[in-house]
């Protein structure tokens, strides 16, 4: 029964089997981009909320089977979200299988929730990229964050990391390519 804001996503998933509160922290870290991504793709905030419930229920059920050798937790969750998205697109409604197994009740969506989810949808794929950013190797994530999110100069980043600016450019380029590849790999065909 442990919860920590400093554990890695993989550690939180590992701890979930005995300490379900760890999953709460994992959920908080990722819920925004999952909601935004699904709402962006579905164009329906209420359905996106329903699918999001199913995504995290499925993640909770399979957290103990998460295998770090097969991918980072963010990619793993993105895979679940894409799978549930495909299913929702086919059926026109969210699956309920995982929630039924957990005995979860429905979670009502209020008008202010709709507004919030729609604002996340407008961020769309950018939210996904933010979620997947955590999965990049440390050296790529740091320079990519500094360059793209903080909009710092290559020279400035190079000085901070004591590496040549050309190396910074390479890492940024590789990081962006890795993000694009992760998103392409996981994207459902509709």
């Amino acid at each position: 029964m442990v919860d920590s804001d400093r554990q890695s996503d993989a550690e939180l998933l590992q701890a979930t089997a005995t300490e379900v509160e760890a999953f709460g922290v994992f959920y908080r870290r990722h819920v925004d981009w999952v909601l935004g991504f699904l709402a962006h793709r579905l164009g329906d905030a209420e359905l996106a909320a329903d699918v999001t419930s199913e995504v995290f229920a499925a993640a909770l059920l399979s957290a103990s089977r998460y295998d770090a050798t097969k991918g980072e937790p963010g990619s793993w969750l993105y895979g679940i979200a894409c799978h549930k998205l495909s299913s929702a697109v086919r059926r026109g409604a969210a699956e309920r299988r995982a929630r039924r197994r957990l005995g979860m009740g429905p979670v009502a969506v209020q008008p202010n929730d709709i507004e919030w989810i729609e604002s996340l949808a407008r961020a769309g794929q950018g939210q996904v990229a933010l979620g997947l950013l955590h999965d990049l190797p440390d050296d790529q994530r740091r320079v990519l964050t500094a360059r793209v999110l903080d909009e710092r100069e290559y020279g400035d980043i190079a000085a901070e990391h004591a590496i040549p600016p050309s190396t910074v450019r390479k890492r940024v380029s590789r990081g962006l390519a890795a993000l694009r590849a992760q998103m392409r790999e996981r994207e459902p065909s509709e």
Partner: protein
Amino acid sequence: MTDFVDRLEQELLAAGRRARARRRVRAAAALAVTALLSLGVVGAVGAAILSSGHGPRPTPTAALPQHCWQPPRDPASAVAPSTDASPSTALLSLLGVLRRPATNGDRISLRGLIYTPITAVYSRYVRVVDTDGMRVALVLAQVCGRVRGSPYPARPPASPPRSGVRPYDAIFLIALDAPRPRAMFEAATAAQVEAGGAIRQAWPEGGRSLVAVVVPDGVARVELSFGTHQPRLSMPVRDNLALATPSPGPSAVAVTWYDSSGRTIHHEQLPVPGVPCTAQELDLSSPRFISPMAGEHADWFAVTNISARNCTVEGYPTVYLYAGTRLLPVSIARGSGPYVTHARPRPVALAPGSSAYFIVAKYRCDVQTVAAASSFAILIPGIPGEWRRDAVGPSDSQVLQYCQGPGNVVAVSPLGPSLRAARPLG
């Protein structure tokens, strides 16, 4: 953030707790059958009373197995191993509650302390804290190290552990007034206490949420935040522990410390623990070349804490240059010249995995190079022994050159918390 996000979290956690309870019932049923079939095993129940004369004292634990793995214990018969040893000085320096002498009130039964990752309970460091009518035991224990990113390995590792995988000290909390089985959970490691990041939340029997934060000396109150638009929770600190029992809800995501005057305390303001690093706790990087700016050659080194505890390094490294087996007769200048910082050495606290940096720099030989350094011997202050590292190469411009006459001065910076701190403007 919206109500939907909070409600979904509550639904998920409630469902997860129900699922875990179902698993426990199934496991208990299976265990009962096993116990009945294995007569004699159950006789050992009740032996787990530690440290206080309330029962038989368990044998101090043997040396930890190298890989720090132990098989899951049978909850019906296990006795937590204990040790009379002392925990890390770093942890004791942070937590006054552990430094105060034990009293009769600290004598508690630790029956059933069978948390698999615990490799040894520090029997002299059990303290009971009574706050707002709630009694909680702080139990200090040595916990199995992390392996391959997983907190607790489920099976023995197939290969020898990577360096740096060590057992570490952690504080466990037991809610003494909760119905059995008592709620017990890992509260914090020394590094987490120092970093201010450990918030633990548990739901003991009765549907109450127990939130605990272990804080270092000097923190009088903590405030938890649960996300945007959520009310914050203020908790007074007693004996390094803040406790509250709000209704179950979202998990806390951040904690702020306050001193007795209400001023915010940042963990960077904590006194440096002052526990010197040992040779086994440090690793030295190979030299890395820094592009010359004004004719100098400079290399930087990182000294990394590979242990599981905080420790401190301080001062100027001692540097010897070798050309093959020949010691080059250069002069060493500590913190002088244009290439390294002139700032005085200060203690650098190293959390597990973090590094201190220093620079070795020398002006190039303009006329004639007599020899080029092929390796370094580096000594870190207070650490016996030396590290040998090959010089950067093979380009001549990337090795320290020795030339006769003046100018054979090698500048060494003090150890600093960042590479920038080791440079002239650091």
